[in-house]
Every structure is written in structure tokens, then in C-alpha cells.
């Protein structure tokens, strides 16, 4: 077991290395660099930039160095904990990301809980009442979440909430609380605003989860031990609870691995539409303007989170499910 853990952790290293190369390539792929997109943007608004300043900035940011050197500088910097400088904000990446991380984590966390809370009962009902109208109806609800494009749903809900409830448009709280210390009113405002992104992002994750839970549960329900238990007279609910559900729960944990990237990606588009002060819009802007260090370092961080998340869920699965352990490998 320990061997397996160590092996997996060691395997993370080449993975992260490969990811860093990919990330760097990705950011450099679009033609041009930060400076050029900055200039282009200014031009578009009719401002002009002093060519002297441009030359100065180009040298200062090291944008005139060859790509390999830029990559090495960035990669070695990250190992030292120096995530580089954001061109756009003119300050260290950690500072730019720092404030937004907190809110992002909260939103993601609540969304995951919401997804579980919705998917769980629907999945169970679907599996135990296969082919009934209840099955169809609830599945329909779950699938609706994934069928409606996030960005459209977010916009419509936001507008309706504004017209009907008077919720201010966009953001995670009413404008007067931004930057102010936490108070009861501020918490209320955050709750009032955050149900929109949670619902929009959460519903798109439920479909997949419902389906997987349903499939797994169906598998379990057909097994011999369930039939035995029923034959022995155990009431159906108790049967459900004591045996197959435990198996299904295992699956929940392993599913974090696939849920996490979905939540993070899905959150980005929704966050842009709703203008949330989370990391999604920041990342997208950084990618568009090729703010190399900000985009690159943050992407590495995200990838790292996901890899670790998958590792943790795999390990948790191995720990929880003795069959896997004894069979000597992680089966999916």
C-alpha cells in the first residue's frame, strides 16, 4: 500500500513537468506576446504608445529573449516559489491571485456540495425505480442542467433575479460591501448573490453524477447478495442502505477526480458572465492578453490541484474498498 502511494506521488513529477511544458506552449501559441496585445488594445481605443516605452518594456519583461530561456526562467522560478510577475497588474502573481482564491474555493466548495445534494437522491431514485416515470422525470431535471448552456442560463437568471428580487447584477455581493470587513449584512449579500453561480455551475455537474451513480447502483442491485438479503426478509430500504449504498458511496469519492476539473472549468465561463471576483475571469483575461506569468503559474496551480485531487480520491478509494487493495490495482 505504502509502495503504491509512493509510486503515485513519484509519478506526479513527470506529469507536472509535462504539464508545465504544455502550459508554456499554450500561452505562447497565439501569435504575439503581452506587449503586442497591450499595444493593440490601446490602439483600438485611440491611444498611442511611445515607441521608446515599448522598447523599454520589452527588454524589461524579457520578452526579447528566446522562448526556451523564458520557459526555464519561469519553471525554475516556480520551484523556488517565485511565481513571477503579472505584466498587467504590475505585481507578483501570488498577490494577484491571493485575494480571489478565497472566494473561488468557497464557491467551488458550495457548488460541489450542491451537486452531491442534488445528484444523490435523484441517482438513487432512478436506480431503484428504473424505467418508471419518476425515473424519467428526475433524470430529465438532472439533464436539463447540463443541456442549457451555462452562459445563457447565468445571464437570464441574473436578469430575472434583478427584476424580480432586486438582486444587483453581477459580482458575489452588492457593491457597497466590496472591500469592507465581513459583517452579517455582507454574508447575507453574498448568499443572496451566490445562489446563481452555484445553481448554474452545480446543475451542469449533476447530470454526469446522476448517470454514474445510477449505473453503479444498478450494477450492485443485481448482485446476488442483494437478492439474498431481500429473500431473507430484510426491508428494501434497509437493504439499500446497508449494502449497495456503501459501494456507491465509494464511487462518490472517486468521482471527485472527474468532478473537480469540471467545476473549475465550468465555473470560468459562468464567472465571466456573472463577473464574479473569482479566479476564472482573471485566468481568461490573462490568457487573452498573454500575461505569461499570471496565466502560466495559475494554470500550473490548477493542474496541480487536479492531479492531487485525483490522487487523493484514488487513494481514498483504495483505502475504502478492500477489493481493490487485494486485487492489487485500481480498477475503474
Amino acid at each position, binding site marked *: 500500500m505504502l509502495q503504491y502511494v509512493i509510486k503515485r506521488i513519484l*509519478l506526479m513529477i*513527470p*506529469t507536472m513537468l*509535462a*504539464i508545465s511544458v*504544455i*502550459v508554456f*506552449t*499554450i*500561452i505562447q*501559441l*497565439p*501569435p504575439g506576446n503581452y506587449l503586442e496585445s497591450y499595444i493593440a488594445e490601446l490602439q483600438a481605443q485611440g491611444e498611442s504608445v511611445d515607441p521608446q516605452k515599448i522598447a523599454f518594456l520589452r527588454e524589461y519583461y524579457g520578452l526579447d529573449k528566446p522562448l526556451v530561456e523564458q520557459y526555464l526562467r519561469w519553471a525554475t522560478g516556480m520551484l523556488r516559489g517565485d511565481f513571477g510577475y503579472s505584466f498587467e497588474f504590475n505585481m507578483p502573481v501570488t498577490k494577484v491571485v491571493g485575494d480571489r482564491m478565497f472566494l473561488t474555493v468557497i464557491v467551488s466548495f458550495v457548488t460541489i456540495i450542491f451537486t452531491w445534494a442534488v445528484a444523490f437522491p435523484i441517482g438513487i431514485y432512478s436506480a431503484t425505480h428504473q*424505467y418508471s416515470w419518476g425515473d*424519467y422525470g428526475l*433524470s*430529465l431535471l438532472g*439533464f*436539463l442542467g*447540463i*443541456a*442549457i*448552456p*451555462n*452562459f*445563457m442560463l447565468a*445571464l*437570464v437568471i441574473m*436578469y430575472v433575479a434583478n427584476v424580480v428580487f432586486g438582486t444587483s447584477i453581477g459580482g458575489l455581493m452588492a457593491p457597497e460591501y466590496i472591500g469592507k470587513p465581513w459583517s452579517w449584512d455582507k454574508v447575507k449579500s453574498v448568499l443572496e448573490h451566490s445562489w446563481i453561480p452555484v445553481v448554474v455551475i452545480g446543475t451542469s455537474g449533476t*447530470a454526469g453524477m446522476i*448517470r454514474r451513480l445510477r*449505473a453503479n447502483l*444498478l450494477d450492485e442491485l*443485481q448482485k446476488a447478495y442483494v437478492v439474498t438479503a431481500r429473500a431473507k426478509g430484510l426491508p428494501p430500504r434497509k437493504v439499500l442502505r446497508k449494502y449497495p449504498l456503501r459501494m456507491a458511496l465509494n464511487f462518490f469519492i472517486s468521482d471527485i477526480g*472527474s468532478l473537480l*476539473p469540471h467545476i*473549475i*472549468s465550468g465555473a*470560468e*465561463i459562468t464567472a465571466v*458572465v456573472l463577473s464574479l471576483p473569482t479566479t476564472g475571469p482573471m*485566468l*481568461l483575461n490573462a*490568457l*487573452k492578453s498573454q500575461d505569461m506569468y499570471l*496565466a502560466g503559474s495559475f*494554470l500550473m496551480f*490548477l*493542474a496541480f490541484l*487536479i*492531479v492531487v485531487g*485525483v490522487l487523493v480520491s484514488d487513494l481514498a478509494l483504495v483505502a475504502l474498498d478492500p477489493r481493490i487493495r487485494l486485487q492489487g490495482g485500481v*480498477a*475503474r
Partner: protein
Amino acid sequence: MSTIELPPPATREADHFVSTEPFDPGSATRLTPEQERFYLASQWKLMWWKFKLHRVAVVSGIILLLMYGSTLVTEILAPYNLQTRNTDFIYASPQRVHLFHEGRFVGPFVYAQKKTLDMDTLRRVYTEDRAEPHPLRFFCFGDPYRFWGMIDMSVHIVCPAPGSTLFLLGTDRLGRDVLSRILYGARISLTIGLLGIGISFALGLLIGGLAGYYGGWVDMTVQRIIEIIRSFPELPLWMALSAVLPVTWSPILIYFGITAILALLDWTGLARAVRSKLLALREEDYTTAARLMGAKPSRIIGRHLLPGFMSHLIASATLSIPGMILGETALSFLGIGLRPPITSWGVLLNEAQNINVVALYPWLMLPVVPVIVVILAFNFFGDGLRDAADPYR
């Protein structure tokens, strides 16, 4: 080795024997015709029967068939051509189809729309002019087009009365009929899904198959690659890959490029499924037998292993199509991906993604309905397939 003592030969007759009289096996247990059919049925037949149990899946299948079928005859179905615009009717609201005019039954018709300009709010206001009905024409001649790029035709299933308009779902900011645009957009959006799945399927099968069958370091590298791709947030990958598409490409090429990109990020799920199934089935006796008999790996994989789980694969693939369709809309939203003048549902939705539309011209959001229907249909259909996938269980 010591000698083994054999028991002494039997001294009396065994009390059971095999009779030599003729025997009809059918007389012992009689199979009903249904049971006989069931036991003699092929794998695919069994799948079909099990699939039919899932009623909604069947309905979804029919819906999908109709939608894909419509893309073949879009020009005939749509009241207007894709590019037709009527600058006198910008942002027209949907016209209602009536049957009765002043109490009389006239048949399906619409009223003309009268336009007034509200110079205070700078808005075009349309009101129904109930003076006279404009009956719809069916199987009529309307906008000319080139059917399948080859034949010049102008037949439409429904057209407006001459000199009148038929905007069943309203018009957009250039006066283009929304219904027609949705129908034409279906061509791109629906086929992206299929094409993308095709590419992704092939990739997943190939790579997953290799990994599963050969194991060892092939498997290790493939697993790492899969892990890397799955660990990556999709959006940045999409953005980067889309940025690579040279701008000089024609819209068609860009369309294929986007399809390829969506597929490139999608094959991992399939590959993993293939790999794990192959890893399991590889140990089965019949595989060993085949190998011992001298079959080549390709024959073993193709003839013996694959059929065992092809149904699963098809189900998974079907369930990935909605992801592609949504991916296309997401890319359009981000401003990469397909852009006008190509018309897809994603492009239409992107054009509708602003507050003006939500507040003032909500009919422009209607392209979301076919998106939802298709995705729901694929989901249910895929569920049905998956449930039916392993009929021997």
C-alpha cells in the same frame, strides 16, 4: 510412486443406466415460441429488445433521427434562405399563426406586421395589422437555392403569402428569419458532434487498445498522457488550440479544425474504458486460446475482444456528443471557434448573449431550445444504449 489401489469392480448392477431408446429432447421441457426466440436471438437483437424497454430512449432516438434527417433537406424546410434579410423588419417579434379570421375559418395565416419607429426609445415597434389575413402557402416556390450545392431549386415546405412575411420565430438585427437560421445552424452544430465523436472514437479505440493489449510501458505512457490531458482545465486548452488555427483558413476548414480540437480533448474517456476492458478480457481463456492458435494481435483484438464491449463503447460515445455540442457553444461564447458568417447554434446563442436580447428581444434566445432538446435526446438515447449494452447480464 506407490501403486494405487483401485476399488474392486462392481458386483451389482448400477441402479441407473442410459436407455438406448429414442428420445425427443423437446418432450421434456417445451419452450414457448418467445423463449425460443429469446435463446436463439443474436446479441444485437437482445440489445434492441432491452433498449425498447427504455421508452424515453426510443422517443429520443426518433427525435434525433428526425433532426439529423432535417439537415439533409434544410433548404426545403426553412421558409427563407440563410442569408435572406429584410431590412424593413429588423427585430420583428414572432408572428402568430391564426386559423380563424373574424370568426371564419380561413386556414393557417398570419397578419401583416406594421412597423412604427419610436424615436423616443429608438425602438422599432411591430403591431399586427388585422385588416386582412395573409394565408400561408405550402409546397410553394420561395427563395431560390442550390440543393446540396448541385441542383437549382426553390421549393419550400411553407412560404409566406406573396409580398408578406413569415417570421414564425421573429427576426434578428439584420432582419433575418430566426427559424431559418436555426434550421441552417443545425447542419453545423449537429454534424460537429458526429464528426468529432468519429475522430475521438477512432483515437480512443486505437490508443486505448494498444495500451490495454500490450500493457507494460506502453500502458504506462498512455496512462500518463491521459492523466495529463484530463488534469488540464479544458478552457485554456481550447483557447490555445483555437488560436493556432490560421486565420487564413476558409470557414469550412476552421469548422473542421474546431471539430478536431474538440475531439482531441475528448478521446481520453473512451481510451480509458477500452483499456480497462481489454486488460480484463485479455486474461480470458478464449483470448489465450486464440493466441495459442496463432492469431495475430489485430485479429484477436478485432474479432474476439472488441465485440465484447463494443456496445459499451457506443453508449459512451453517444453520451459524449452533447459535450461536443456544448463545447462548440462555449467556444463561440469565448469568441474563438466558429464566427459569423458561419451559422451554428453556438454562433446564434453568442449573438443573443447580451442584455438587450434578454430584456427586449427574447425570441433571439430561442436557438437554445433545439440545443436543449438535442442534448436531452442524446442523453436519454445514450442511457438506453448503455442499459441495453450488455444483454447477457
